[in-house]
């Protein structure tokens, strides 16, 4: 198990290093930082001074090491717009985003998994078709369209809820519902196909053939086995808690990390973009790591192999 853990940690570290290197390479490829930051019509001697000051004349590998060192020590640079520390800028937006994504995640789990299981257990029934029809609709309607339709209905026509901003819980309802419905649809489809796959296995037939009550077959054999693939996609959803709301935050003018990212991209505020990129990668990699460990708990085969 230790060995397994070590291997997974190593892979997680490699992914993080890749993301950092990706950011460095892209940063260097996208143009001369001195030109970008000082502006195109900066005097040449100022540019030379800037390059010397930031070590841009050193060989690339030393720049890379320095860059890496800065990131390890937590220095992600300053926003080019207001000169504030990029980390602080991003950190103060995180609570607002989590206020949307955590309730939305609960809706996805609470709606998507039961719907998928029910559909699979009553395959080809009316329930199955209805659930799947809704699920496909939820998947094919992009979140910005769904969000705007909800605004049109509940804010413009009925006037029940505000259309945007962040003043109280009423403002959070529409964005949460928008995200929750889309995610629940994806999860329902996934759960259903994982469940159907498991229900088609010989051991399920064996269990019900030897007289195990159907409820016990479902709870004891089908669900634990269907949980294994489903955990992967839930891990992905947990991993995108921080930045999974880019589009929805923009639709509802919600001042979260996603909105910050879009504004930073539009302004080419590279330090902020890079900070969010690393934050997302770290969350995602952590979530994947947890998923891998959960696999060990859910799948005895993996446990044995590592013993």
């Amino acid at each position: 198990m230790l060995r397994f853990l070590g291997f997974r940690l190593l892979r997680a570290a490699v992914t993080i290093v890749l993301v950092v290197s990706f950011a460095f390479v892209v940063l260097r490829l996208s143009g001369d930082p001195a030109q970008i930051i000082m502006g195109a019509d900066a005097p040449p001697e100022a540019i030379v001074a800037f390059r010397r000051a930031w070590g841009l004349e050193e060989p690339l590998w030393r720049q890379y090491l320095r860059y890496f060192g800065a990131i390890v020590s937590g220095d992600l640079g300053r926003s080019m717009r207001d000169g504030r520390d990029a980390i602080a800028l991003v950190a103060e937006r995180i609570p607002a985003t989590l206020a949307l994504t955590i309730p939305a995640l609960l809706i996805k789990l609470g709606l998507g998994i039961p719907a998928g299981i029910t559909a699979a257990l009553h395959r080809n029934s009316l329930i199955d078709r209805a659930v799947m029809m809704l699920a496909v609709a939820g998947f094919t309607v992009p979140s910005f369209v769904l969000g705007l339709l909800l605004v049109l209905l509940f804010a413009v026509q009925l006037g029940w809820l505000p259309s945007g901003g962040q003043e109280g819980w009423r403002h959070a309802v529409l964005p949460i519902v928008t995200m929750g419905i889309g995610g629940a649809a994806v999860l329902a489809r996934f759960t259903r196909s994982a469940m159907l796959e498991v229900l088609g296995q010989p051991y399920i037939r064996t269990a019900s053939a030897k007289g195990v009550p159907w409820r016990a077959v479902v709870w004891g054999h089908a669900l634990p086995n269907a949980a294994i693939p489903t955990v992967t996609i839930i891990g992905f959803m947990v991993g995108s808690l921080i930045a999974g709301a880019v589009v929805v935050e923009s639709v509802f003018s919600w001042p979260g990390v996603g909105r910050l990212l879009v504004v930073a991209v539009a302004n080419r505020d590279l330090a902020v973009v890079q900070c969010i990129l690393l934050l997302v990668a770290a969350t995602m990699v952590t979530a994947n790591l947890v998923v891998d460990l959960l696999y060990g708990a859910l799948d005895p085969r993996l446990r044995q192999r590592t013993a």
Partner: protein
Amino acid sequence: MSGIALPAGLVGEGKRRRRWPVLVLCAMAWLGLMLGIALLADAIAPYAYTALDLRNRLSPPGATMLHPLGTDELGRDVLSRLIFSIRMSLLIAFGATIIGALIGTSLGVVAAHFRGFVEQVVLALVDFSASLPFLILALAVLAFFGNSLTLFVCLLGLHAWERYARIARGLVISAGAQGYAAAVRQLGASPWRIYGRHILPNIASTLIVSMTLAFPEIILLESGLSFLGLGVQPPETSLGSMVGYGREYLTRAPWILLSPAAVIVLTTFSVSVLGDWLRDRLDPTLQ
């Protein structure tokens, strides 16, 4: 996000029913219509998509016979803009899907052919791109490089490349290990012949199904980024950017964004239905 299976129940039980399900026929008809519009955009659009009609600004659908779907805040004809947006969005989605399939399949084949170190590098890249939400990655690249249509298409092409790479690698390894590929190899065939004439035709159906499953995702990505104002830039127009700009007039002129939104939804839905139906018919092994 991985391409998730549409239930067989929704599009008919492929094998048992020989006749074509109604839903699939509708999806095909809709896609045919979209393709026709995209190809004939210049001929059928009543106006240029940038033409202004300042006397009829924000005119609702049906208000004048001149603008059946209404006009936007500058008096531009929504129908004409919709037609050119369909062309732009389909062009981007087709281009990006093909780029993704080419890159992914080549890397997958290369990984399977050379194994060892090359394979590990490809797999590390696959891990890397599977570990980041693609939207974030795309936003980062757009921030660093700025935007141009070519870059945008190539960027979207990177979406799902790792899926093709994974599938192609797996299929090539299993094909090479057993049976026909080993048999042809020992006939003295060159690697080009083995891959080109035997392995690729045999795995093509699986790859085509993956392409139809990735296509709607690319349309959604393109429209999402364009909606955020980071994709297709004015004066060019796409379905997503129409929705994005129409959002300003949501209360006063909802028709500006409703028609492109409907086209996005119907198109992605049709391609999904078609892709799932194809998968059931051609390759039931794909999840």
